């Protein structure tokens, strides 16, 4: 059930009514979280529950086996990774692989139709599979590396793996962060409940007001046939998408963090104003932090990181970015998105342009603009329906033509309005403005209360057309 649905509000009300009683004992805590999370997940399609249970049992059993037979642990890890990546391949990449193998075979003069031979279940993408698979894998790898001991209680493990606030769209919480939190009863304070409230209210505002109101403009633009030929139109449309995806996903992460706080748990920040970055390296330390650090710790560093020479460092970074692109979706335009970022990151490493630029007067603003330019170009690949559309849009954007005459529908006007709101929010942060300095502590607390109330009211009356969270599909 998505956070932006009435059924979730009912579910959450019931859960938080029960939680103070349930959290008193270890088993009560773990069983309640697991049961509630399975209901939450099964609401989309109860059959997916078995996939989640399968992934979990695989890693739970593997970690226990590694502890019992340490000399075999490498083989246990390989088997567990094969299971996890195999299930991801079947459900996420089977169609992509079959289609492209078919194309290659046809080009070689041996046409085969693999697509029609795929079982029907491989065409369904279980919601959140990439998130819980990665979370589960991190547990096994951490046990293998000796960073943590395996969990003995099955429900303790499933409470970690399935915890509903972050189950389907992250943040990807590491086992060594969450499992210890789940091991003890954690009471909330007024401060933590208020922090949770701010995160939940802000998250809903970002998702249902900003992202959902940007969506009709973005969807119309990318579905338009023929596509408008105005550079301005496409810069606005791609800008709108950039903020749609930030606030859609960032909003989800904030709601997840807020709900976790109400349960007594802490998840790390997942988005930290990425569009205020003045280098791409900084962008990746602020964007989808839980995934970026996952790839850093479990792909980039095991490949050798940048410690095996400069050239090898570039190769490792390219591999990591391309795999990250494919993690987002089984299509060449996602792969291209990762590769374009890798290209820009390589150029940044080689030239060191951000540091040089920032030394100039107004250099930080120029660096910010340069990063935004690259990020927007890369977003085109991410959002486009295929590579041809991506290149056509980028071609129009880079013409910098003065054509107008594009349809200024209500969706366009609303989109531009909320794009401005999103930009203003990021610029507020970039300018290092701090509202706490404008008021006394007592007045500031009242301002915060009023702000949260207004955000809730806006989320009710200014919410956009109901949209699924973008990252569910990953």
């Amino acid at each position, binding site marked *: *059930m998505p956070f932006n*649905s*009435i*059924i979730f509000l009912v579910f959450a009300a019931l859960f938080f009514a029960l939680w103070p009683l349930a959290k008193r004992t270890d088993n009560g805590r773990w069983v309640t979280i697991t049961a509630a999370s399975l209901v939450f997940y099964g*609401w*989309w399609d109860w059959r997916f529950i078995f996939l989640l249970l399968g992934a979990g049992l695989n890693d739970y059993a593997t970690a226990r086996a590694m502890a019992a037979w340490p000399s075999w642990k490498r083989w246990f890890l390989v088997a567990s990774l094969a299971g996890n990546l195999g299930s991801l391949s079947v459900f996420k990449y089977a169609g992509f692989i079959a289609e492209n193998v078919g194309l290659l075979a046809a080009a070689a003069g041996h046409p085969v139709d693999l697509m029609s031979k795929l079982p029907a279940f491989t065409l369904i993408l279980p919601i959140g599979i990439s998130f819980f698979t990665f979370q589960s894998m991190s547990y096994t790898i951490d046990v293998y590396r000796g960073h943590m001991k395996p969990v003995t209680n099955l429900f303790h493990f499933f409470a970690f793996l399935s915890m509903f606030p972050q189950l389907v769209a992250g943040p990807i919480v590491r086992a060594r962060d969450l499992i210890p939190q789940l091991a003890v009863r954690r009471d909330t304070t*007024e401060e933590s*409940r*208020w922090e949770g*409230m701010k995160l939940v*209210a802000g998250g809903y505002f970002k998702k249902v007001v900003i992202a959902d*109101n940007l969506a009709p403009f973005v969807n119309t633009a990318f579905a338009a*046939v*023929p596509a408008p030929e105005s550079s301005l139109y496409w810069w606005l449309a791609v800008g709108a998408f950039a903020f749609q995806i930030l606030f859609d996903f960032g909003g989800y992460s904030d709601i997840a963090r807020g709900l976790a706080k109400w349960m007594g748990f802490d998840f790390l920040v997942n988005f930290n104003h990425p569009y205020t970055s003045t280098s791409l390296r900084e962008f990746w330390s602020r964007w989808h932090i839980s995934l970026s650090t996952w790839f850093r710790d479990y792909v980039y560093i095991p490949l050798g990181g940048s410690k095996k020479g400069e050239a090898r460092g570039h190769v490792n970074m390219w591999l990591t970015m391309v795999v990250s692109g494919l993690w987002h979706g089984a299509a060449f335009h996602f792969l291209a998105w990762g590769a374009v970022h890798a290209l820009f990151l390589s150029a940044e490493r080689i030239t060191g342009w951000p540091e040089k630029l920032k030394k100039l007067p107004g250099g930080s603003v120029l660096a910010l603009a340069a990063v935004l330019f690259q990020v927007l170009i890369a977003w085109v690949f991410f959002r486009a329906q295929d590579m041809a559309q991506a290149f056509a849009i980028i071609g129009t954007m880079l013409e910098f033509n003065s054509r107008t005459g594009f*349809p200024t*529908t*209500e969706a366009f*006007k*609303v989109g531009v*309005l909320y794009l401005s709101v999103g930009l203003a929010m990021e610029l507020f942060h970039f300018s290092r403005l701090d509202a706490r300095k404008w008021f006394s502590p*007592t007045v500031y*607390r*009242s301002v*915060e*209360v*009023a702000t*949260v*109330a*207004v955000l*809730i*009211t806006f989320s*009710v*009356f*200014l*919410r*956009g057309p109901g949209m699924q969270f973008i990252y569910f599909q990953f």
Partner: protein
Amino acid sequence: MTRNRVFLALVLASTLIVLIGLLRPDAMRTVSREKWFWTWKTHSDRKFDVVFVGDSRTYRGISPESMTDILQGIRILNFGYSSGSLSALMLGEAERRLDPAGRRIIVLGVTPSSLTPRAARDEQYRQEKNRTSSEIIENLYLSPFLTYFDPTTPIRFFEEIGSRKARFREAFYESGWVAGWKEPAGPPGSIGVFANDFTGNAVSPMLVDNVLRQTEAWTREGIRVYAFRPPTSPEMTDLEKRLSGFDEETFRQRFTRAGGVWVDVARAGYRSYDHSHLDKESAETLSRLVAEIIGRSMGEPLVFPAQDSVSPSPGAARPGGV
């Protein structure tokens, strides 16, 4: 203060929500009705004597309420969808809604757009058809109670409370009709937005052939098939003639040969608020005319009530279009 911030924020938010909900113009409450309307139209299993199928010109242009004033006791459904087509899918779905024991009449709203490949994707119908069970339950049973919380956009909000610009209004009816009009009434703006509709998207001969084949099949099975071209503005008719590749006269001849009855609704005086769709009054006029022609061809007894008592005003539409 410090100890009650969550409670205080919730109380303040509730107060604001109640105040705004009470004070805002009623015209902003359409989202829940609209959700109910499309879910009901798509998922209701009720059966009818007459089913209209077509695109938005059909669902905005045909009022079953006005028709039943003339064809009394006949159950009529307007099964039109936005950018809807006369594809095999939609014709089949229309047939499924006929009562086998009823009069069994299908009326095609033939527009050039409804015969194009892009329309044949039937995106709106598919979107509604593919809704999850919980969405269907929410839209059918909860939406009528949620109109109080219906959202708006800042642009619409300020237009409603301040601007003198003509405002678009619409009312959703259980029969599948959406009545639309402008307050105050005014001429439509530019037609430019429609100019690209047929670029790379001309009328598909395959779709036309399929409509004619289906008409023949239905006629053989005893289903009576009527067709009409929903009236629109003269500018739009001209644009479609130039760009769509649709030849009405040829279609009409072939349709008649296939066993269908062409309903000629060409009259002066229809009014469109956007160059494409008829406004409420014109839709009612058109519907009465269609009812009269169909009724006469079927030999049905016709009733001609006084003009001002023909159909309920939009304000009389029940919540959710019920």
